[in-house]
C-alpha cells in the first residue's frame, strides 16, 4: 500500500491543478459589446478609495467625479458653473456664500439631494475621526481647520443647511477660488441617510449611492469598476454614454497593447520610451497640464547661500535641450514658477506675467559664478550634491543631463545622490541636501496655491529661504477682495521669488494621452479630475 502513496501524491497534485484551473469558469463580465460603453484605464491599478472624503489621487478622483456632483461643476472653459446649486449669492466681503440648490437634483436611488447632505459631507471630511488626507482643502471654511485639529466643535464649522435647499457657507477669509473648490470631489455631497446606517457605504460596490452622471454597478478590487448611466441624474439628457468601465492595467506596456487591440478607448499613460515617436506620428496628443518640475536649493548650505551662485546654476541649464532630448514629451520650458493655464477670474496668470530669465545663458552664468565666489572669498566651490528619487528612469536621466550641463558650462562637477522615494522625501523635508529634485502639483487652480509654498516655514518651502516682503505680499493677497489688486500682489511676490531664486524652474508638466478617434467631448481640466460626462462614441 505504502508504495502507492508517492504516485498518489502526484495524482492529487494534477487533480488539484485541473480542478482549480476549471474554477476560472466563464466570465461574468465579458463586455457586452454595447456600442456606448467607454473603456478607460486606471494606470495605478486599484484606486485608493471611492469615498469622496478619502479619494485624493488622480485615479480615484477621476472615478469619483463621474459618480458624484458637487454644488458646481467645471465647464468646457474650466470655469465653475452651477450644478447641484442653481444659484450662488456672495456677500460683498466674499466671506459668506449662499447656495440655492436645485429642486430636481437626485441621488441614484431617486431620493432628493438636500443641503443637509452637503453639510453632513463637509463636516465628515473635517471630522478628525475620518482622518481624510484631503481635509485641508476645506480649511478655507470658517473653523474648518480648528475642528479638524480637534479645537472646535462640529457646530462651530461655518457650513449650515438653512433648509433642504439652502446652504450657507462662511469662510475664514475671502477666497476668490471657493466656487472652483466646490467642483472638486472632496466637496461632493454624500448620502447622509445611507451613511448613518452603514458606515461602509462607499467602501464597496454593493450599496453605493451617488448623484453624478454615472452610478456604480460593480467594483471588483484590482480588476474592474463598472458604472452605468444614472437615470436620476439631474442633467441625464446630456449624458450620451450607457456607462463607463474602468479597467486596471497597471503595467504601461500592457495598457498600451490593450489600447492597440481596441479594448481601451483612452490610454492616459503611453509608454515613456514611445512617447516621442507617438506624438510625432500623431497617435498621442498633448494638452497642457498644471504644475512643474523644478530643483530646490538649500539656501542654508554652501555654496547656495549666495544668490549669484544660485542664479548661475539656474542659468546654466539648457531647458530646451533637456525637454527635446531627455524628457521628450514636448513640454514647455519653465522660466517662472506659476505654470501657464493657472487661471483666476482675471484670466491666465502667465498671460500678463513676464518670463523671468532667458534659458541657457551660459556666459552670464559663468560670470555670476565667478562674482559669487569672489564675494564669498572661495577659491574652490564647495561640493554640490543633487538629491533625487530613483523611482523613475526619467529622474535619473534628467539629473545626469543637468550634471553634464554644469560640467560643460560652469566647469563644476556635481555629485548625484539617488534614493528610494520615501527616504528622498524624508531628506528633502529635513533639508538634508544641497540641491534637490522637486515637483509641484497644485491643489486648486489659483496662482496663490503655487506661491504660498515659499512663505517662511511653509511645509512646502523646504529650502530654508525666507523673505519678509514676500510673506507680507502673500498675506495681503490672501486677504484682498479686489481681484486685480490681488493678482498684482501675487505678481510682485513671484518677482521676488524669481529674483532671489531659491529654486530652478525646469519645465511645466503636460498631459500626453492616446485617444481613439471616435471618442469625443472629454473635458480635460488643467487642475482637477477629467470629466467624461459629455463623452460620445461616434463611428
Amino acid at each position, binding site marked *: 500500500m505504502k508504495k502507492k502513496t508517492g504516485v498518489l501524491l502526484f495524482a492529487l*497534485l494534477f487533480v488539484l491543478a485541473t480542478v482549480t484551473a476549471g474554477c476560472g469558469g466563464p466570465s461574468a463580465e465579458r463586455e457586452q459589446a454595447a456600442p456606448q460603453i467607454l473603456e478607460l484605464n486606471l494606470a495605478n491599478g486599484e484606486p485608493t478609495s471611492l469615498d469622496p472624503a478619502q479619494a485624493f489621487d488622480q485615479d480615484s478622483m477621476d472615478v469619483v467625479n463621474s459618480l458624484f456632483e458637487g454644488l458646481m461643476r467645471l465647464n468646457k472653459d474650466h470655469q465653475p458653473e452651477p450644478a447641484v446649486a442653481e444659484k450662488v449669492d456672495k456677500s460683498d466681503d466674499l466671506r459668506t456664500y449662499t447656495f440655492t440648490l436645485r429642486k430636481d437634483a437626485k441621488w441614484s436611488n431617486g431620493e432628493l439631494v438636500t443641503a443637509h447632505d452637503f453639510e453632513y459631507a463637509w463636516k465628515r471630511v473635517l471630522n*478628525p475621526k475620518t482622518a481624510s488626507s484631503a481635509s485641508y482643502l476645506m480649511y478655507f471654511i470658517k473653523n474648518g481647520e480648528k475642528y479638524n485639529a480637534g479645537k472646535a466643535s462640529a457646530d462651530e464649522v461655518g457650513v449650515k443647511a438653512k433648509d433642504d435647499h439652502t446652504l450657507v457657507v462662511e469662510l475664514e477669509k475671502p477666497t476668490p477660488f471657493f466656487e472652483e473648490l466646490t467642483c472638486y470631489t472632496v466637496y461632493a455631497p454624500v448620502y447622509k441617510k445611507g451613511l448613518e446606517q452603514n458606515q461602509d457605504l462607499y467602501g464597496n460596490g454593493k450599496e453605493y449611492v451617488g448623484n453624478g452622471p454615472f452610478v456604480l454597478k460593480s467594483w471588483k478590487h484590482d480588476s474592474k469598476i463598472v458604472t452605468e448611466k444614472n437615470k436620476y441624474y439631474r442633467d441625464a439628457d446630456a449624458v450620451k454614454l450607457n456607462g463607463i468601465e474602468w479597467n486596471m492595467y497597471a503595467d504601461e506596456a500592457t495598457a498600451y497593447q490593450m489600447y492597440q487591440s481596441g479594448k481601451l478607448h483612452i490610454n492616459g499613460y503611453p509608454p515613456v520610451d514611445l512617447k516621442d515617436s507617438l506624438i510625432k506620428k500623431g497617435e498621442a496628443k498633448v494638452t497642457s497640464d498644471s504644475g512643474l518640475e523644478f530643483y530646490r536649493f538649500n539656501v542654508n548650505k554652501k555654496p547656495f547661500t549666495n544668490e549669484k551662485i544660485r542664479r548661475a546654476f539656474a542659468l546654466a541649464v539648457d531647458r530646451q535641450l533637456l525637454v527635446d532630448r531627455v524628457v521628450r514629451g514636448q513640454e514647455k520650458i519653465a522660466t517662472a514658477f506659476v505654470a501657464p493655464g493657472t487661471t483666476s477670474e482675471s484670466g491666465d496668470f502667465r498671460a500678463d506675467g513676464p518670463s523671468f530669465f532667458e534659458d541657457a545663458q551660459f556666459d552670464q552664468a559663468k560670470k555670476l559664478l565667478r562674482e559669487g565666489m569672489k564675494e564669498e572669498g572661495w577659491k574652490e566651490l564647495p561640493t554640490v550634491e543633487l538629491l533625487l528619487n530613483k523611482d523613475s528612469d526619467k529622474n535619473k536621466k534628467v539629473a545626469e543631463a543637468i550634471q553634464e550641463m554644469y560640467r560643460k558650462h560652469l566647469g563644476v562637477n556635481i555629485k548625484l545622490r539617488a534614493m528610494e522615494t520615501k527616504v528622498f522625501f524624508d531628506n528633502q523635508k529635513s533639508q538634508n541636501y544641497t540641491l534637490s529634485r522637486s515637483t509641484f502639483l497644485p491643489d486648486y487652480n489659483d496662482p496663490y496655491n503655487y506661491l504660498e509654498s515659499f512663505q517662511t516655514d511653509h*511645509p512646502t518651502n523646504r529650502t530654508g529661504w525666507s523673505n519678509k516682503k514676500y510673506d507680507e505680499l502673500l498675506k495681503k493677497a490672501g486677504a484682498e477682495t479686489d481681484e486685480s489688486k490681488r493678482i498684482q500682489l501675487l505678481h510682485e511676490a513671484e518677482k521676488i521669488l524669481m529674483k532671489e531664486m531659491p529654486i530652478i524652474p525646469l519645465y511645466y508638466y503636460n498631459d500626453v494621452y492616446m485617444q481613439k478617434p471616435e471618442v469625443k467631448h472629454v473635458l480635460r481640466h488643467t487642475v482637477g479630475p477629467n470629466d467624461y460626462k459629455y463623452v460620445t462614441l461616434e463611428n
Partner: protein
Amino acid sequence: MLRYIGKRFVIMLATLWLIASLTFVLMHSIPGDPFTSEKKFPKATLENLKKEYNLDKPIPVQYLLYLKNLATFDLGISIKTPTRTVNEMIEDGFPNSAQLGVQALAIAVSAGILMGMVAAIYQSRMPDYIMMVLAVIGISVPNFVLGPLFQKYLGLEWEIFPIAGWGDFEQSVMPSIALAFLPLALVTRLMRSSMLDVLGQDYIRTARAKGLPPFRVLSRHSLRNAIIPVVTIIGPLSIGILTGSFVIEKIFSIPGIGKYFVESVTNRDYSVIMGVTIFYAGLLIFMNFLVDLAYGLIDPRIKLGSKEAR
C-alpha cells in the same frame, strides 16, 4: 508521530512570532512613513491620520497592540486604501494568485519531471541537449521579458489568447506558462542530475538483471528514488509561486496578492507589510512541515521524530 506533530507546531508558532517581531522592527527602522510624500499634510491632518492607525503611540505599544490583533487574526486596515482591510485584500487576492500558481506549478512539475527524465535517459544525446538548452533559456530569460513577448505575439498579433485580464480560463494560460518557465527549468535540471545518479546505482542493475521490463525499472525503481530532491524543493517553490508574482500579476493585470509584497514596502503601508509577510511566512512554514511529512510517505527509510534517523 503525534508528539512529533505537536512539537513541530510549537516550533512553527515560535518561528512565526520571531518573523513578525523582526519584520516589525525592520519596518519601523527604515526612514519615511506611510504619509511621507511630495504633499506635506498640515499638522492636524497628519495627526488625525496617525491616530487612526495607532501610529501616534510609542513603538513598543504599537507592537503589543499589533500582537494582540494578530492573535485574533485581525491584520488591520490598509493605510493606502483606507476602505479595505488587509484580511479582505488577502481573501480577495490569494485565490487568484493560488490558481495561477497551481497551474504554473502543475506545468512546471509535470513537464519538468518528464523533461528531466528524458534528458537523463538519453544522456549526452540529442534529446538531452535540447532539454538542457531549453532549461538554460528558462533560467536566463526573466518573466518580464517573456510576459510582454507572449502578449505581443500570442495576444496582439495572432490573437490566440487574451492579452491581459482575469476571470476566464483562457486569460490564465499565458501568465501560467510565463510563470512556470523558471521553476520548470529548475525542476528539469534537478530531475536530470538526480535521475543520472540513480541510474548508476547497483540496485538498478539488479532490477534489470532480474529481467524487469525497462518501463517498470524506470517507474518503480528509478523515478521513486530520483524524485526526492524534487519533492524537497516543491515546498518552498510552491509557496513562492502560490503567493503570487509581482511581475506576472502586474503585466497580465491579475488581481492577486503578489503586488502587495512590493508595493506595501514602497508605500510604507505598515499593516499590509506585516499582513502579507506573516501570511507568506505562515504558509511557508506549514508547507515545509507538509514536505517533511511527505518524505516519510515516499521514502520509508526516513522516520519522522526518531533521533536515530537523523
